[in-house]
């Protein structure tokens, strides 16, 4: 099963809308925590939804290096391989 980068981006943007209270534009360069102004627990809750969407595990260890939506797309791609 191959999922394109664009598909993942669209999916992540969809899942993030719930946290996007200031209605900012969500792009690959959006910083999930600082641009959306959400705390670390909210980030972990969002990541749980991503895990369920793709039936993958995203260990918390990788989150310290995952800042932007683009970073997260990379993580999802890596886990889907």
């Amino acid at each position, binding site marked *: 099963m191959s999922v394109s980068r664009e598909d993942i981006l669209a999916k992540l943007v969809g899942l993030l809308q719930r946290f996007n209270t200031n209605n900012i534009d969500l792009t690959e360069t959006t910083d999930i925590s600082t641009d959306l102004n959400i*705390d*670390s*627990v*909210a980030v*972990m*809750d969002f990541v*749980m939804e991503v895990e369920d969407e793709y*039936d*993958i*595990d995203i*260990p*918390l*260890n990788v989150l310290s290096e995952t800042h932007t939506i683009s970073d997260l797309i990379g993580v999802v791609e890596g886990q889907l391989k």
Partner: protein
Amino acid sequence: MIDLFDKHKPMVERRDAMIAAGVEPFGLTIEEFVTPTLGIIQGRQTILAGTNNYMGVTFEKQCIEAGKKALDDYGTGTTGSRVANGTYKLHKQLEAEIARFMDKKHCIVFSTGYTANVAMMAGLAGPRDTIYLDSDSHASIYDGCAVSGARLVRFRHNNAADLAKRLERNKDSSGGQLVVLEGMYSMLGDRAPIADFIELKKKYGFQLLLDEAHSFGVLGPNGRGAAEEAGCYDEADFIVGTFSKSCGAIGGFGVGNHPMFEAIRLASRPYVFTASPSPASVATTLEAVRLLAREPERRDRLRENADRLFNGFKGLGLELGCDVSSPVIAVKCPDEEAAVGIWKGLLESGVYVNIALPPGTPGNECLLRCSVSCAHSFEEIDKIIELFGDVFGQFQGASQPGRE
């Protein structure tokens, strides 16, 4: 050059806004104690309903005497780690007493409850292992996971089916697998459905660590915690507890029956590289544990008090964090402003409770958290209920108390 403090600005601004509104919920000072459940705050007599002093032992005569004697006999501090010069006869006695109380073969005592979790996690799991942790876990569990270097997988709170899904994804993993639960969760007072997780343990064969910080000495016929209360005590491989709540001291422990349990003393950096607990604290804990074993009626009284407060709050129509009675009873507030205002109102009318705000709370709730003590009199419990009724009533306009 960026100032290292810049990143803390939003937090500081949030605190300053509270101070500007006339409250400093995170800088409260207790000036004096009248009893374990009554203190002087801002010059006023105040019922203490947020101290985690579940078993009311902080002023027990025999604990205080034992502490004084330990100061005389052993001095003020140990000046060293357990693995160097910091092991005294008292530490060994306490470990033997806890092992007996918990009915486990092995016990290691740590300097704080926080350290107990960090040290156990770091001693048990390593970079090739996976730790599965409940999403509502205490910060010390998250930090322990980080120190261990293990792969961390977070599952939905109290949801065994969600954990099963994650175990299934990882079933080909070659490392060890540790699942960490809390017996009773500190913010909402809800218990883990331990039996459901034990079923998974039988299927997947992971090892299980239970943090009984708020339930050691408190729940179960012998005070061994939520697992004993749930009737599945023997299935937990490791249990962690703290002395800062039911024992009224400071320190923590890990217990287990694993034949290699003592290896944690060699492998865990938070055990090896910290000074051992001070003699007076060890001595008061030792007496407190004996007291908790000798006086099970304290647990009965705590249950009565908790039921009384729980039912009283229910009667007021307050929205509670958990739908069963528990020594921790959290009242939900509609938002941060309401929580801060009501907390201040309660304090000024003579009751202290904890205020808990996101991100430190499950589900981003703004909570007023009460912890019940067996030392509370029924009059004090009734007063707490009355004041909650008054202050919530004053704060609410048209809407129902405590509801969004």
